[in-house]
């Protein structure tokens, strides 16, 4: 499933555009990371891609069909949203929470049946959390919750999943667990758009990268070419250094003045409180 934004503009109030002339596309089997500083418009972009908001100009298309030409149900059967994990008020079980993903397949007066429960079981299996089905959604870990929300998107029947900061609040182990599932699903044919505050995760898991800078999609491309010290500086207004490990994996280090342990660093031998 190909999801594309073509020169979209979005403003919450006239005169203050949050998104300016943003273009991007993600094809099936691809994972696109959207990087950018706080307030650069990542979440607004995701809302436009999911159809929750409609851009004032430009077009968002899924397999060539404009989102505005689709009914809400048809749109939800193509594009799923994986929100940042949230604490729900009522303690639904994981199975009940994922079952809500079947909403676009059910009429107003319909209730989920055998087919829907099978879709839920398949979705939980695909992200590897079948054992959580009867656990309360409020009682599982943040990483598990992200996986459950991905499962809800799968139960929806969506071919393209939009993830808002899936790594937020997760330790490295759980971040890796979530992105591993994302990569597997991408290999199975799904497409992903992921917003992230961690450019290192883009190096590790992305097929394509877009930098949003002040609401414009300035730099696009494969992580190897798009993520450079210059593009990081443009996006975050600070200096970075890209280092290589022995096996060639690249990693991004921010250049900070006081780096403990760095050769020649001031604090190599512990803090200096001005001993003179």
């Amino acid at each position: 499933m190909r999801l594309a934004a073509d020169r979209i503009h979005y403003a919450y109030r006239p005169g203050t555009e949050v998104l300016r002339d943003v273009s991007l596309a993600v094809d099936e089997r691809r994972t696109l990371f959207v990087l950018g500083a706080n307030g650069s418009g990542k979440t607004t972009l995701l809302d436009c891609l999911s159809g929750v908001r409609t851009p004032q100009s430009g077009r968002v298309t899924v397999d060539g069909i404009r989102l505005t030409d689709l009914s809400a149900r048809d749109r939800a059967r193509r594009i799923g949203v994986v929100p940042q994990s949230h604490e729900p008020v009522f303690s639904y079980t994981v199975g009940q929470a994922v079952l809500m993903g079947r909403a676009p397949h059910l009429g107003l007066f319909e209730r989920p049946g055998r087919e829907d429960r099978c879709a839920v079981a398949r979705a939980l299996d695909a992200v590897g959390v079948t054992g959580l089905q009867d656990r309360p959604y409020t009682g599982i870990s943040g990483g598990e919750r992200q996986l459950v929300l991905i499962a809800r998107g799968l139960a929806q029947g969506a071919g393209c999943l939009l993830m808002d900061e899936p790594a937020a609040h997760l330790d490295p182990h759980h971040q890796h667990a979530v992105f591993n599932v994302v990569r597997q699903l991408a290999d199975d044919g799904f497409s992903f758009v992921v917003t992230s505050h961690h450019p290192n995760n883009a190096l590790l898991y992305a097929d394509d990268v877009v930098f949003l800078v002040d609401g414009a999609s300035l730099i696009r491309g494969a992580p190897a070419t798009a993520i450079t010290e210059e593009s990081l500086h443009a996006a975050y207004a600070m200096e970075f250094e890209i280092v290589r490990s022995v096996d060639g994996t690249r990693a991004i280090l921010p250049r900070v003045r006081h780096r403990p342990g760095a050769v020649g660093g001031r604090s190599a031998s512990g803090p200096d409180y001005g001993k003179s």
Partner: protein
Amino acid sequence: MSEPHRRTAWILVLAPPILFLTALLIGRYGVRPDEAFRALFGLDGVSGVLRSLILRVRLPRAFAAACIGANLAVCGTAFQGLFRNPLVDSRILGVSSGAAFGASLALLFSAGAAAVQGSAFAFALVAVGLVTLVGWRFGASTLVIVIGGILVSALFNALLGLIKYVADPLSKLPAITYWLLGGLSGSRWSVLPPLLIVTGLGFAFFVLVRWRLNLLTLSDAEATALGVRIRPLRSVVILVGTVMVAASVAVGGMIGWIGLVVPHVARAWVGPDHKALIPAAAAIGAATLLILDTIARTALPSEIPLGILTGLIGVPAFFLLLLRFLRARGEAR
């Protein structure tokens, strides 16, 4: 269905009809089951007075108790979900305040029972109409609707105070006060048709959409992303719910706590999935009010106003639930 679930389902299905029939037997004049059976099915062997007592006094009253209990509980459940707030009850949108003003206004002019009921119903809808207007004007977010409900309630409470202030303290004020305390002593067949029709249609609506109510507990953006057109659905649920509450309050007066406590009891029993929760809340609400009304009319030589009884029982019940909730979270001993 697993064994404990099946047992719960049987209890919830059987309790309301059993309590309904029990309510026909208990009273200052005790009735034997066979006498009640004969009276209900028009068989010989019961006196005219007894037949009249069963058919014209206790039967409509039991219907009123069951309907009002179910209505308040179902609407409280739906509203708690819709506003994503477990402290909301069925009166949140100013329905009760509007109804109280309407009834008092009619009582001020010494109107008959039907006029009091009609006025209460009409002003309940006026109150909700005002809230909806505020909601529409300012974007219909749940927060705006809640604030609108608080404002409209305050307005009608002030108007109610005005009526009490000018009402004749010897004749009219007691009637107003008594109505405000709530009770089903006025439930005759003549005033029941609106309540029965509204209950039937409203309950059918909630039974049909009950699974979708789960989706209303999500944030607007999340529900939209799931392909749900959340605002129309929310508006219809609010409309149907408030009409049910208005019809109930118009007959029974201010009966508090059912709409707040019963949803919690139901949720603790069958879980938060509205597919099971709505029928469970209806059953528990109907059963609760049948029990409370039977106590109200039999415990003391004169009738205890129902609003007092629901408060006396509802407050401790809510306290126990709160304690249980905090214990489950490890925040209380």
